[in-house]
């Protein structure tokens, strides 16, 4: 049985290979095309869970407090993430509102909830009915989070307007920036192959 599970193929070049068992910190790369097939991390699952919970708290903060505020000639305008979507909708740009809020809040949030929903049963060694569909959802959503791109977008906007008016960066901005760090680290410590092996072990 052990030899059967160790046989694999590279997803990028379809070379048949046998995967060695990895020690924490080791990567398995395809000898032909160099694709990283598996990256074993020390306590990957529990680390992802801890980071995912932190990221979810930070994301909640980022949606509850002012993101930035602009002040010019006695007028003040405060921007929050949920208000941004509402205002785009009011301008008649509902598609843009859904796209932007989707890739910066909903998709990353859903990814993090899925990570929590997968890691908790795996760590408790307790089968759960949603493990397989959760795993599929996680890797379907993967490419569609653009949280880190949004941070660059915000910095560019700041540079564009900083000479026009007095701009103040709010608590939500710092929460969002920290959220991006935790979110990226969550996915970095989660190895796809390890996760699926754990899911398979718990499958009824």
């Amino acid at each position, binding site marked *: 049985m052990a030899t059967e599970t160790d*046989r*694999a*193929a*590279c*997803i*990028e*070049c*379809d*070379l*048949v290979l046998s995967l060695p068992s990895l020690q924490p910190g080791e990567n398995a790369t395809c000898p*032909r*095309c*160099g*694709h990283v*097939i598996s990256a074993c991390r020390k306590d990957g699952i529990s680390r992802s869970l801890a980071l995912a919970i932190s990221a979810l708290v930070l994301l909640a903060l980022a949606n509850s407090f002012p993101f*930035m505020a*602009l002040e*010019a*000639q006695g*007028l003040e*305008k405060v*921007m929050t993430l949920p*208000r*941004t979507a509402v*205002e*785009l909708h009011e*301008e008649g*740009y509902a*598609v*843009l509102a859904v*796209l*932007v809020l989707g*890739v*910066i809040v909903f998709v990353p949030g859903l990814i993090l909830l899925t990570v929590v929903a997968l890691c908790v049963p795996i760590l408790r060694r307790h089968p759960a009915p949603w493990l*397989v569909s959760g*795993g*599929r959802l996680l*890797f*379907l959503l993967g*490419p*569609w989070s*653009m949280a880190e*791109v*949004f941070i*660059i*977008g*915000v910095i*560019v*906007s700041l*540079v*564009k*307007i900083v000479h*026009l008016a007095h*701009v103040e960066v709010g608590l939500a901005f710092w929460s969002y920036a920290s959220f991006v760090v935790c979110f990226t680290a969550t996915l970095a410590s989660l190895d*796809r*192959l390890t996760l*699926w092996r754990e*899911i*398979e072990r718990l*499958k009824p």
Partner: protein
Amino acid sequence: MRPFPSESAAAQGLACCHVCYELAPVSLESCPRCGSGLHLRIPDSLQRTVALLLTSSLLYIPANVLPIMTTSQLGSDIESTILGGVILLIDMGSYPIAAIIFVASVLVPIGKLLTLYWLCWSVARRHTTSHHQRTVLYRITEFIGRWSMVDVFVVTVLVALIHLGGIMTITPGLASIAFGGVVVVTMLAAESFDPRLIWDQLGDEDE
């Protein structure tokens, strides 16, 4: 159908699951571990990729011709396009930011479209060289695609923040939706391209 190279999983009738990387006989039709559909290669990969690339190329025209935002200041409206915004930033002297926007909104989308067109063409023409370089090129296009979204986010933040009644108000333009569409459709195109097709021509030199 042409035979697959002997060292590939496909030659043995085995398919690597796209979702969980399980290696299973393709005759099972769905992955025994995660239940996703099993295919030796992404079905109709080239046709799908080229169709999506054409859609994206068409969307790129309104994205550049139409205004991405309108600035209303003391009664006068100024419409700006993507390239107009870059030129404005150069005039303001913020060269690094102008460079970021130029790279993210002009170089990356065009480079990504051209690279994917060329990869599809090279697979269709059964190129038998530089498999490794082409795979690396594919990985780069897959990785940088999402960074083009920067300009859309800039417009979003400016619209949300600069809303000071008659003094200065910024409203979004249609190009923001078209450009968002370019980014999303090009990402879909990159995902429907199967890099294993590049390696399927490996055995051809021996013929």
